[in-house]
């Protein structure tokens, strides 16, 4: 298992290098000169002389390979340059805003898992009866609802009408309930539906039939023979949900005035603050890739077939 984890960790390096190269190439190929963006944000008119000077300060006059090497070697040491707007080191800003976002996304992931699993089990247990219809209807609603709009509906109901919860801002646990609900609704729905389908499929497997023939009770069969196998697709799906939840959080932050990295990134996008956009993307991709690595490890831990195959293949 340790070998498996180590190999998967090493595989992260080429992926992240690839991501950083791709980002770099796209930035340099895109229309719009970073030097002009830099001058605009410094309130300097972009005359040819000023542009040339800015290109030199920003190192844009170097060959692209040299630029990349210099950027990545600073980045590895934690230096992502200075924001064109705030003039502060980008890393400091990112680390300032990121925890609030991760808090929201992490709670949303926890909520998704804790609620979707019982819903999926309930739905499968009462297949084609009213609990199943209820869960499936709920799941269908979930995959179709715009999360930012749901956020406003929740504010309208729970903050403005019932006055139970604060409509926006960050503070105690009361502030987190509505954003977490809005962000996780879709993943929750997908997960519940997936678990239902997976349980029904496993229920028709031969080992389940055998367990029933041995005279085990329905609940015993469900717990030890269906659920364990049926949970594997949920583990895989969790990797995707991390991406969805992170992305959803970035949007939802604007609804609830949540002081996270999403609002910071959107303002950087408006002002075309390239170092910030670059660093923000790299951080979120890294978090996403690491979460998927954890998912793979959990999967291999739960399912020895994967682990042993992977070890045999390498």
């Amino acid at each position, binding site marked *: 298992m340790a070998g498996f984890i180590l190999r998967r960790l090493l595989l992260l390096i080429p992926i992240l290098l690839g991501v950083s190269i791709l980002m770099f190439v796209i930035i340099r190929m895109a229309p719009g000169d970073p030097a002009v963006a830099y001058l605009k944000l410094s309130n300097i008119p972009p005359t040819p002389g000023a542009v040339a000077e800015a290109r030199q300060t920003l190192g844009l006059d170097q060959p692209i390979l040299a630029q990349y090497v210099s950027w990545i070697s600073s980045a590895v040491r934690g230096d992502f340059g200075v924001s064109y707007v705030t003039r502060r080191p980008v890393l400091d800003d990112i680390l300032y805003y990121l925890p609030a976002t991760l808090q929201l996304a992490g709670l949303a992931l926890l909520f998704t898992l804790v609620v979707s699993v019982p819903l999926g089990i309930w739905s499968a247990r009462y297949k084609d009866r009213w609990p199943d219809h209820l869960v499936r209807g709920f799941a*269908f609603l979930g995959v179709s609802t715009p*999360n930012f709009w749901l956020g406003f509906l929740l504010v*309208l109901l729970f903050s403005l009408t019932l006055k139970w919860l604060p409509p926006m801002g960050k503070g105690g646990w009361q502030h987190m309930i509505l954003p977490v609900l809005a962000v996780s609704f879709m993943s929750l729905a997908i997960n519940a539906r997936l678990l239902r389908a997976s349980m029904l499929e496993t229920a028709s497997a031969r080992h389940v039939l055998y367990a029933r023939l041995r005279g085990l009770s329905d609940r015993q069969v469900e717990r030890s023979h269906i659920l364990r196998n049926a949970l594997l697709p949920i583990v895989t799906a969790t990797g995707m949900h991390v*991406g969805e939840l992170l992305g959803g959080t*970035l949007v939802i932050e604007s609804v609830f005035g949540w002081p996270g990295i999403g609002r910071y990134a959107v303002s950087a996008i408006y002002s075309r603050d*390239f170092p910030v956009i670059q660093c923000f*993307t790299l951080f979120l991709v890294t978090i996403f890739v690491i979460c998927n690595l954890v998912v793979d490890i959990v999967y291999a831990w739960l399912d020895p077939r994967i682990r042993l195959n992977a070890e045999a293949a390498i």
Partner: protein
Amino acid sequence: MSVASLDEHAPRRTVWRLPIRDTWAVRIALVIVVLLAIAAIAAPLVAPYDPNAVDLTQRLQGPSLAHWLGTDHLGRDELSRLIYGTRVSLGSVALCIVLIMTLAIVVGGASGYLGGRVDQAVMRFCDIFLAFPTIVLALFLIGILGTGMVNVVIAIALSHFAWYARMVRGLVLSFRQRDFVLASRAAGASRIRIFFEHLFPAIMAQMIVLATLDIGHMMLHVAGLSFLGLGVQPPTAEWGVMINDARQFVWSKPMLILWPGLALLLSVMAFNILGDSVRDRLDPSLHGDHPH
């Protein structure tokens, strides 16, 4: 056995006869999609007012005979803006899909046909795209390209095409050894002819399944990015922009935020029902295994 009779087994016409399961939900979904298409195409004929006509004397009116859904904070007719909004939503998603399919056929096809090193390189390239969460890649690309609807379309297309390219590559590889392809080759058909006669219809059928499943999701992305102010620029009527416009009146005029959201919800639902139905019929193997 002649080549022609072998060819009859080729999945040639599957594209144009999408078998859709006929239930009441699917029928309602089809009606909604047709209505949306009519609203988008015939917006100037259907909409009662100019969607951008500002009339400050009529601002924030409730529903009335003159304005069925009321007016917004600038006195613009809400219903007309909703109808024009279908243009942006459907149009941008349609463009996304065309772009994704073109990219996927070129990239995935090259990978599958050329094989070897090219294949390896292209697949690693796709892996890099798949390492991004969709919204993060879209935000990055909009940050670099600048805000605006065209860039949103490019961003959404680039953040989805890798899944499609991988699928095209897989199909190309699996078709190479199929009997009817080998027979065509033996009969002297050129590579290009084989591609358009045999591969292209099968690839399109699969891509339409994937795309129908993705339409709803892409509409949500377009609206979300516009809501953040990164997509269409005001005063253009678009559902995400309308939700953002209405947010400051959420307490006094909650209906203003309800309408565009409901329009979005209904459209996404309709496309999701159609997507599920098409998938169930055409491709049972995709069941429950969709990446989004």
